[in-house]
């Protein structure tokens, strides 16, 4: 009730404007989700009725199921590796002087601002020069590099607020360095570590450019969708897209909740 009352105080042009933005943002998604349940292969209105035929199709399509598996492997691996590397990097830089730390963070953030297309082409050339074949592993390595800055940003912000005198208290009570880390530091920063891991998984799950240039035969889900759009407007991609949307937005949602809950 109270929330409603607060809404009433917002002037109507603002509501209209925000509504328009949201519509523009979410209408394409809504259309994909809607047509994934369409009983007809026609991707146009009028809507002819609901069915799960496209979901049945994609989950029985070996090519799609395999790509789902690859995407899942890529997401989990990217998430785990970036969470571990990001935590280690965060712990490494937290004690540095603010100047050195600024410099390290600047270089660590480069992959975030670097054009993904250039990065992916560069990576592909590099792999070829090194004689590394294009594969899922090659793609995962690229995705790790891409998502590491996001993870480091979240973890280093958390560590900046961590009271390291707690570690002294643990040492005073007889804990060795690793034991103190495991029982004090890690539990306190864990929400941020898990949150950033989920963020990295979401980034990996719908990553296209690096996968396009380096995956070779190991096509991930976004590559399969792209292939199908190219050949003909296959309605099954709506179902694939919806699955991907549900997974990534669930990951991003949990990630946001995790990192904001951590308020120490």
């Amino acid at each position, binding site marked *: 009730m109270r929330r409603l009352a607060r809404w009433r105080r917002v002037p109507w042009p603002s509501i209209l404007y925000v509504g328009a933005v949201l519509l523009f943002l979410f209408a394409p998604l809504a259309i994909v989700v809607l047509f994934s349940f369409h009983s007809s292969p026609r991707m146009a209105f009028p809507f002819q009725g609901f069915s799960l035929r496209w979901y049945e199709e994609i989950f029985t399509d070996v090519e799609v199921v395999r790509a789902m598996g690859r995407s899942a492997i890529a997401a989990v691996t990217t998430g785990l590796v970036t969470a571990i590397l990001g935590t280690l990097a965060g712990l490494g830089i937290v004690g540095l002087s603010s100047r050195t730390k600024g410099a390290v963070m600047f270089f660590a953030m480069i992959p975030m601002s670097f054009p993904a297309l250039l990065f992916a082409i560069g990576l592909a050339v590099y792999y070829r020069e090194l004689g590394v074949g294009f594969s899922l592993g090659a793609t995962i390595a690229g995705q790790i590099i891409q998502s590491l800055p996001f993870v480091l940003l979240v973890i280093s912000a958390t560590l900046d607020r961590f*009271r390291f*005198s*707690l570690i002294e*208290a643990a040492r*005073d*009570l*007889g804990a*060795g360095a690793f034991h103190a880390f495991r029982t004090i530091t890690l539990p*306190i920063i864990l929400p941020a570590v898990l949150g950033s891991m989920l963020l990295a998984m979401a980034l990996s799950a719908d990553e296209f450019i690096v996968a396009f240039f380096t995956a070779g035969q190991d096509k991930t889900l976004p590559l399969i969708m792209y292939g199908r759009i190219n050949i003909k407007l296959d309605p099954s991609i709506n179902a694939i897209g919806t699955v991907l949307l549900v997974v990534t937005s669930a990951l991003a949602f949990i990630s946001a909740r995790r990192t904001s809950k951590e308020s*120490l």
Partner: protein
Amino acid sequence: MSATPDSTSPAIELVGIEKAYGQAPAVRHLDLTIAQGEFFSLLGPSGCGKTTTLRMMAGFEFPDAGSIRLDGHDVTEVPAHRRQVNLVFQKYELFPHMTVRRNVGYGLKVRRVPRAEIDDRVDEMLETVGVGAFADRRADQLSGGQQQRVALARALVNRPRALLLDEPLSALDVKLRKRMQLELKSIQERLGTTFVYVTHDQEEALLMSDRIGIMNDGRLLQVGTPREIYGTPADPFVADFVGELNAFEVEVRKVGGRVSGVVDGSPVDVPSSASTGKRWRIAVRPERMEVGPAGRKDALHGRVTELNYLGHTLQYSVETAVGELVVRAGAGDVEREPGSAVSIWWAADAVIDLGEATP
């Protein structure tokens, strides 16, 4: 770890400790022996090196020179987690993600004490410090005073050879602080643990300690019982830092066969160390000065400029030939109104020797 406590050795010995941060010396040639079961306070202004000294005892800082012995064993190079002392931190540093019970049991668990024994000892210690009712609360849901007690329990439950306390009461409000001072003292007496207490609050140190060490500028200036520190300070800094002081200079002369200090034409007592013909600095505590009607022989003469009623005492400001003096008298005494002429005198043993005056 399980060195048998040797009760014939002092609890803590510091020998020739030097510590500098870069070019800045923090502790200079410090020797100190703290007895078993003693409540010892390190008192001094901020930046005097008292916390650094405490952290060296805890094993968080290591001296540049000198040695530290705990129960007779050299621990100079032993890091904090292998020393049988525990520290109560100024800001408590309770683990916010754990319950009170787990906080207090942390040290025992690290040392692999059996589960059942941990539970018993934790419960007992929580009762001792009076937070038994909060055992299952999270540490970050407690008030300052409760956190303070939990921090104390978390350290004491390990039965340390000495408990180190770094200004543990400074974050509490005055009333709670006063109560905790008495409680800390009674807990210490009950357990018989050696306490090393760092504070900048002289009243706190006087109230709680068996002995006090006064530090300034990295040096330990005097070690003594509260009475010694207050009554016979060894050093002008000590005299001034602990309690209030009326300090002034007198001319040392032989008056009627006795060596006396002459102020304003009247002879006053001076320390036996004072030599004739010199100017000497002496001091008298406000409550050791007597105030009475003008015209008394062998007294200082002055005029009351201010009279303050403090409940239990009357506090006068008196303008004299040696400057303004603060004098305290019992509240039942005759009140001397501002403007009235008075005499001020004191007993011979009230004189604090501050040495020869530097011209």
